[in-house]
């Protein structure tokens, strides 16, 4: 399981549960799509009534990042109503990515408990300002918490909680969300030459 950003991967390498949050919906949406593709094969739980995943975007990203057979490497389960969330989380065995588990703003204790009870690595992506909700919204569950913010021409990842690192920020260009930094667009430009 990796994010595709080596520095971030180093920070969360030993954490069982890591949470990313952002007030910027589009930024977090693009970010976790890249994480899903980078982490494939992976299980994914989407919480919410609708939306939350663009399968075509995943396929496109996989092609850009050179990952084959992405369609058979990502396994999805959806939890539409809040009562379904704890049971759905418990139903997964291995590594898991959860998108917006606290979406409904209810059953926080049950959801937090089901995440904590898992024995495997879990990445959580939450929309909204988690700093305002603090522990009542499962703040204590994650070992590391990182905030994503949009900056001019890119975005920054701010480490808010970590057992091993002090608070600091990492800045990335916006393109880092959509292609492999090392590769760039070079191979595509030389195609057919």
């Amino acid at each position: 399981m990796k994010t595709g950003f080596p520095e971030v991967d180093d920070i969360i390498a030993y954490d069982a549960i890591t949470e990313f949050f952002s007030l910027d919906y589009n930024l977090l949406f693009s970010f976790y799509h890249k994480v899903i593709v980078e982490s494939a094969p992976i299980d994914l739980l989407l919480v919410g009534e609708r939306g939350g995943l663009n399968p075509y975007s995943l396929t496109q990203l996989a092609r850009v990042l050179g990952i084959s057979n992405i369609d058979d490497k990502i396994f999805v389960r959806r939890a539409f109503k809040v009562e379904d969330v704890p049971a759905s989380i418990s139903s997964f065995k291995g590594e898991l990515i959860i998108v917006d588990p606290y979406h409904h703003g209810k059953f926080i204790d049950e959801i937090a408990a089901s995440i904590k009870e898992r024995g495997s690595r879990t990445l959580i992506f939450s929309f909204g300002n988690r700093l305002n909700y603090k522990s009542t919204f499962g703040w204590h569950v994650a070992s590391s918490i990182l905030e994503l913010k949009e900056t001019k021409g890119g975005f920054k990842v701010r480490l808010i909680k970590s057992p091993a690192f002090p608070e600091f920020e990492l800045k990335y260009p916006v393109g880092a969300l959509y292609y492999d930094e090392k590769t760039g667009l070079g191979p595509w430009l030389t195609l057919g030459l």
Partner: protein
Amino acid sequence: MGYVIDAFPGRGSIKVILDSFRSVNVKTTFPIYVKIENPSVLYDHPNVVSVSEEDWRSFEGKIKLYRVEVDDVSALDYFKKKLTLYNTIPSPLSQAMIRLNLLPFRLVDISWNGIQLISSHLDFPQIKFVELRRYDWFGYSESGKYYRVFVNGKPSYDGEGIPRVDGDVVYCEGPCIASASVFIDRASRPPISLKELIERSLASKALLREIAYSSVGKALTINEAWVALSRKFAVPSIKINVENLKSLKKLREADRAGLTLFPRAGLYNEAYQLDFVSMYPSIIVNYNISPELLDCGRSNCPLGIVPEALNDLLERREILKNIDKERADAIKLMLVASFGYLGYRNSKFGRVETYEAVTNTARKALTKVIMTARDLGLTVLHGIVDSIVVQGPRDVIERLMDEISMDTGLQLRIDAEFDWVAFTPNLSMEPHPQRYFGRVKGGKIKSKGVIKRNQPNLVKWFLEDLLNEASKGARAEDAKRIVADELPALTERYVKICFSDYPLAYVMTIRGVPFIRGTWGFYKAYEYRGHDPYYYENYVKRVSDEVRRWFL
């Protein structure tokens, strides 16, 4: 003897309200279904009369439930807080009533020997039902100054003063002076007629009071819950669904809506519109799609709860079509909602897998129709989810319908026989899949997506007039010629109305509220305070230009 209008639970009895304001008390207890490890504690509650152990089935398998008979239905609130309850829909009151043969709006004979049902489930009750509607110069509105009263569907009063109404069931829009056994405030519920509401109550065997302020889904859920109850199938208050794990590929294939084609824009002569009869409910019934049968496999499955409930509704609708169209429409609305409720997260009998199975089957069925039609030499002009427009000889089309019925088990029927049909382009000259119109045999126009609810009356009338003019042409070429000749004069006539003083023409209704565009912006049209003629002129000219493109 009398019709059951309403009922109220009492201590150890039900007060049954019959027609003509009569009432009678009937002794009974109310059933509550409980899952509990130590049932003896149930007797600690003072309202518990008896407890009996029963074997039930549930979504998870066999379970043991205790049927607790209570003499006061308010005990349900206590049990809800303390215990896990099952089958709370239909309400314990309705469950007690059905045991006594007391069904809403059915004629019953209550005597010392017992209660007997006299009328059949299809008979409409001979009661006095009154509907009071308010209107004003711009049309029906709950804030209108004038009142219209309909007694048993027939107009009986039209005037300015608030009328005094009385009846077994009274349905008022806004404030009214009424004496009734059941009073319904029309302003607080979706706008359907009282007759349709009574039909819903008859079909779902639920009291009118219980379903009057709810969406159509409640009547539908109650209907399914009766089937579950009769089969001793335990339905929890909140059903937890854990979706089957899907690969990305499977998710992409499953999570789709019905099939819609993009037609080639233009006018076509001699075409037929074929429709699947109640397509989605028929798929659920014919393919036995129900949430409790997900793990059942493909064969040896018993008939599911949802298919059984819907089958009853389908049969009822077919019979009612020949008796009363309004009542048949009420059932149609329930059938339409049945598919959506199958995938709704809070539905008691819903699971997303079943919803996806229905849309998948519907897509396959429509694809089958398209492929078979092409094999038979027919030209497919358009297809929208459950209907298709084809060109070709009638005998070949009838063969197509037979073949599809044989292959899919779904019934295909001719919905319209067009002399000509038009598929229109949108502003960027691409085909508009949800908009078509055409002249059907007999000269009438059938249209979809042409006249919109939120357009000003002026524009609606303009389009109606134009389509009526077009319908004078028996062939597409004639219709084109007529529209080319008539459109400038018609546009000119409606532009003149923009600059005249005709308030009703400028009203547009958005979400039930009438608006007029004034020179300073939109305002609510409860009172006419002028209009912006240039706004309406541009509107008419814009629509006129668009119509010209349709008939090119």
